[in-house]
Structures are given as C-alpha cells and as structure tokens.
C-alpha cells in the first residue's frame, strides 16, 4: 500500500522542520534528558544533606542559601530529595518499559512471523488483557500484590504490554509487505536474512518513536501511582510521592508543590519531545496547503 505516487514523494522529499515541536524539539528533549542525567549524578559532587535526613527545626523553610529549594514538612532538603528521586523515578520508568518490551517484542514478532493459528491465539490473549482499561488493570494487580514501587512496576507492565505487542505485530506485518522485502525473498534470501536485513531496519525507527512516547506515558502513570500512595513508599524520594506528601502543606510552602511537579512534567516532556521529533524526521510527507 503506497500512499503517494513515486514521482510525488520524490519531488516533495525536501522539507523544513516544523517549529519547536519538530526537529528543534528533538534536541530540546535530548538536552532535558541529559539535564536529568547530570542532575542524577549531581548528588555525588555537590554537598547536600542526605534526602532522608529529618530536621524538625527547619520545617517547611522557603528556599535559602543552605536549602536552595527549601525544605519539606519534616525539614528534609527538597533539592536533595529531588536529586535522590531521579534514579528512582526514571529508573522505575525504564524498568517498566524494559519489562513491557521484554513481553511485547517476542509476542508481537512471533505473532507476525508465525501467522495463522499462532498469530490468532497470541492476539486473542492480548485482546483479553486489553479489554480492561490500562490503569484499572494496573490498580487491580497492585491491589493484589500490595502497594509498593515493585508492585506498581509489575502492575503497569502487566496491563501495558498488549498494546505494544499489537503495534509491533502491525509494524512487522507492514514492513514485510513492502515490495523490496518481497523481492529479497523472491531473490532467494533466507527468511532469517530477510528479517534481519530488510524487516528489522524498517521496524526500528518507528519502534524508537513508540518507545519514547510510551516512556512519557509510563513515567506519568508511575508517578501518579506514587502520588496515590500505592507506588514508591515513604521515605523513598520519588517525585509523585513528594507531591503526595506536600498536599497538606502546599498553602504554606508552595515550593513543595512546584518543584516535584515541575520535575515530572519536564521529564515527561523530554520523552514526548524526543518521540515527536523522531516521528517528524520519519514522516517525510508534507500536507497540501488549502
């Protein structure tokens, strides 16, 4: 299925980046992500109190020279907690995404490559899981495992993988239908070679888009769960959990509300920008002007 006649796509190949959310956004997203990585390591270079250190004498202090981002309701340094949360929040998202891919990749590939009854069976099974709203199923799984960061990772991954398996299957199927892939098969290349040399290179770029956009959503869901108190447990520093702790106090200490919220938003934004930027690079088609 070609969308554009060859002569057209050739003629209109050159295009300009589409503003902030386009290629510029990709760089901004990468820069933001890089910033978080640097922030994650900053704890070992800058001398800050440990994120769990309670100091009841300086409760809810506004930002100052000693505490650049102020302190929380237990007198803990917000900056230290913010930095301490980087590996927890991002790490949990990465672990979840890895778990999702660990199921979705073999599942989708097997379905697409095996076809027939295997495909039908695998997709039926995925459909069953997909028949529940993602967050609802994740909540149920966490409910049965008991609230913890590990449980929320398992719950989200268990509810999330089928949609990705489906996407992967569709990607592989459409890649296999391309003329040059068929030609390679007809020319006598072995199935393994066709998949490795012709199908995979087509699947990877859109997969990169999917993974970065999904990372953004996973990050959102995990921090929501921590916010609800059923993800990361106290006293572990986690952005969502920090916001949950801030709830009774944010009228008196707005910095407790702003700092972790901004951190989640920027981290999610980074992955969204990277995903959209990559997609813009891949989508070469330009719409007609009316």
């Amino acid at each position, binding site marked *: 299925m070609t969308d554009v006649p060859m002569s057209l796509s050739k003629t*209109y190949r050159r295009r300009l980046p589409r503003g902030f959310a386009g290629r510029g956004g990709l760089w901004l997203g990468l820069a933001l992500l890089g910033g978080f990585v640097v922030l994650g390591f900053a704890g070992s270079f800058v001398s800050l109190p440990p994120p769990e250190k309670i100091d009841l004498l300086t409760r809810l202090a506004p930002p100052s020279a000693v505490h650049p981002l102020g302190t929380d309701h237990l007198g803990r340094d917000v900056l230290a907690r913010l930095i301490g949360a980087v590996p927890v929040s991002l790490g949990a998202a990465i672990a979840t995404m890895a778990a999702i891919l660990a199921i979705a990749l073999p599942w989708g590939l097997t379905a697409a490559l095996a076809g027939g009854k295997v495909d039908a069976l695998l997709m039926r099974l995925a459909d069953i899981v997909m028949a529940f709203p993602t967050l609802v199923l994740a909540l149920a799984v966490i409910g049965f495992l008991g609230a913890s960061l590990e449980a929320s990772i398992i719950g989200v991954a268990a509810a999330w993988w089928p949609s990705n398996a489906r996407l992967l299957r569709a990607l592989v199927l459409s890649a296999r239908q391309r003329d040059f892939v068929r030609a390679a098969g007809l020319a006598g290349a072995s199935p393994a070679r066709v998949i490795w040399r012709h199908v995979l290179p087509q699947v990877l770029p859109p997969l990169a888009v999917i993974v970065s956009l999904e990372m953004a959503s996973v990050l959102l869901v995990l921090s929501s769960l921590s916010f609800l108190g059923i993800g990361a447990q106290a006293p572990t520093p986690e952005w969502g959990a920090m916001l949950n702790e801030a709830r009774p106090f944010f009228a008196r200490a707005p910095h407790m509300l702003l700092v972790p919220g901004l951190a989640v938003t920027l981290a999610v934004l980074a992955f969204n920008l990277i995903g959209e930027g990559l997609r813009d690079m891949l989508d070469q088609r330009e719409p007609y*002007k009316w």
Partner: protein
Amino acid sequence: MVTGLEVKSLSVLSGRGEPLLDRVSFNLAQGERIGLIGASGSGKSLTAGALCGLLRPPLSARAMALRFYGNDMQALTPRAWRALRGTTIFQIFQSPGTALNPARKVGAQLVEAAVTARGCPVRDVADALKRVALDPEVARKFPYQISGGMKQRVLIAMALLLRPRLLIADEPTTGLDVLTEHEVLETLATMLDATGAALLFISHDLRAVRRVATRTLVMEAGQIVEDTAISALSTSRHSGARALANAVETLEGRC
C-alpha cells in the same frame, strides 16, 4: 488569437532555495490544447502544481509574470485562489485510484463540483456521466467499486461539471491499458469540445499527447527545451526532442 495563460520565467524553488523548475516560459491561447512532455522528474507535475497554486509548503514558486486572461495570479490571496480553482483552472491528476475520496459515493463528489459551478446538481451530474459514457448507476457507487478507467472518466465528468477555462491533465492515462486509454482520451476531447476549455496535457508518452494536442512543450531537467508543433518535432534543434519523435516512429514502424 486571445492569450489565455501567460507564463514568463516561472521557477519553483525547493525549501533550501534550489531551483527545481528553472525559468519556464510559455503561452496558451484561449481554447488551445497543448502537450507538456518529458521524462519522470523533469518538472512537469511541478509546473502543473505551480499553475494551480498547489505546491506543498516548502516549495515555492516565483515568476516574472503569471497571468490568466490578464489577471496576475501571483497577487492572489488564498481566498481568490479558491475562487479561481475548479471553475476557472481545474486540474486532474495521475493515479485516479487515489484521487477520489474512498469514503464517499462518486455521485456526492460530483454533486459538489456541480454546486461549485452553480449548476443544477442532479440533472447536471446525470448529464455529465452520460457524456463521458458512464452508466448513471456509477453515481451510487463508492470509488473502490469501479475500475481505474471509470475513475478517470469520473474525473473528466467533474471537469465537465466545473466547465473550467483551462484544464490541466497530469498524466491522466498513465497506468491504464491501451483500450481504456483510448476511451479516456476520446472522453477528454468530448469534454473540451463541449466546454471550449484550453488544455495543458502532461504526459511522458508522445503518442497520447499527439491524440489530443497539436503543439507540445518538451521539458528536461526543469527547463523547457522545445516548444513546437508535434509534426515538426522530428526536425527539432534539440536532440532530446528529436529522440522522442524518432522513438515513437520506430515503435510504430515495428508494430
């Protein structure tokens, strides 16, 4: 002879400012039918796009003069372009397979054209279908239910309804078998006779061009290299144009 379309030094630039179409000039008289011939990628479709204001955004057109019956087309606002398109200049495209909206019935899409031309939709659509030798039943079908040749004739019926003063036909017979191509070209001639429209017929196939036009432009790498009567093509000063004419003669000699 009244000059209809005047194109003077028309260039199309890519997003990076490279010229894809390089200072193209030609005139088209009222009701005249000419061909525009050239290899794939020589800039034929770009010329057509620029004349309809239908270039995709990073591409831009500029010309010393681009006039239709004396009106400067370069000064047109988007709204004025809309008023011009369809009823004054209309274009039908290659690949009729994708040109019609797959989600709507053929009739509905033709009625739209009739409404644009301020005609009487129901009667005009039936009449137009009859003129292009299609069953009125076709109006009740979806595009996927009719053949490629029928779709192209539907597009010509659309042109009949719009009654433009200039029709640009971009490779209208590419991908059709020889018999269907013959029918489509006949229909095209019928439509032109009925409306008195001028025609710019774009093709890579000189045999098809010869059927509908007497004069042709030859395009190569974004430039017009020849503008002559088709009968004089074999004696052209330009080697590419001569080669085109000779190739057709050789082919037909063999058949």
